[in-house]
């Protein structure tokens, strides 16, 4: 992390001088006041200069974008990456010709990528971010598929009057099924097993 210690007649002047050295702006840094300084008698005797330490904050969002861009490029896939940031939620939207490579079977590559970006962005950062990576509307399509699956399996549970267990899914995919079946209210659902084998059970 970049940091610099600077001094000046006042705290404000010291900060300014540090910002110039770092070539950045006030909102990009954290200021640690080491000595507030003293005016001294008539501004001459016993005056002490103010000393501050200025630390450049890591721009987590920028780093996340660099990370995903670099990884995808190194995977040998050409993709356009659009980023939207909504307070502490970052969404990356990938598009391109060979996008299937980045999605993988049942989105496993997309999910792995999402998990790695999540780790990279939240590593020793101040702000906690959640990360979603979408590719060519995959998440929306997947949501429709999961809702359809959930409804069909609920029908089956009611018909055979037995519990129906679904295959393991990540948390947010289970949530989609839980919420659609909760809305309907005809069956109860819960999750069973330990990650990464946690799966939904539908009870009539």
């Amino acid at each position: 992390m970049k940091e610099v210690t600077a001094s000046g007649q006042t705290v404000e002047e010291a900060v300014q001088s540090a910002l110039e050295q770092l070539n950045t702006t006030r909102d990009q840094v954290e200021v640690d006041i080491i000595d507030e300084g003293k005016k001294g008698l008539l501004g001459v005797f016993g005056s002490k200069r103010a000393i501050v330490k200025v630390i450049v904050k890591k721009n987590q969002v920028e780093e996340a974008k660099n990370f995903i861009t670099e990884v995808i490029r190194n995977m040998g896939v050409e993709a356009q990456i659009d980023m939207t940031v909504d307070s502490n939620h970052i969404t990356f939207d990938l598009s391109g010709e060979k996008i299937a490579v980045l999605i993988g079977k049942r989105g496993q590559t997309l999910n792995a990528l999402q998990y790695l970006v999540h780790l990279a962005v939240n590593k020793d950062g101040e702000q906690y971010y959640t990360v979603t990576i979408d590719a060519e509307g995959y998440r929306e399509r997947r949501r429709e598929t999961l809702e359809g699956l959930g409804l069909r399996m609920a029908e089956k549970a009611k018909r055979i009057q037995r519990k129906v267990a679904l295959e393991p899914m990540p948390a947010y995919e289970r949530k989609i099924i839980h919420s659609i079946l909760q809305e309907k209210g005809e069956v109860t659902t819960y999750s069973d097993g330990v990650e990464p084998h946690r799966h939904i059970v539908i009870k009539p």
Partner: protein
Amino acid sequence: MKALIESIVTPLVDHPEDIVVTVNEEDTKIVYHLAVHQEDVGKVIGKNGRIAKAIRTVVYAAKTDATKRIYLDIM
């Protein structure tokens, strides 16, 4: 491929200078061996190997010219 592994692992560890990726080409497969600083081992493996699994998933998905199977060995 080596660059891919390094670019994934670098932001996850505290000692990026200690990342070593070695390649071992065998008859039917190419084995990449990833070694990191001792303190960082947990950061590339994760709880129940979750991070290691994610790294492998991304690495195996990458396109390669070779027809050989790729393996990623961690530590």
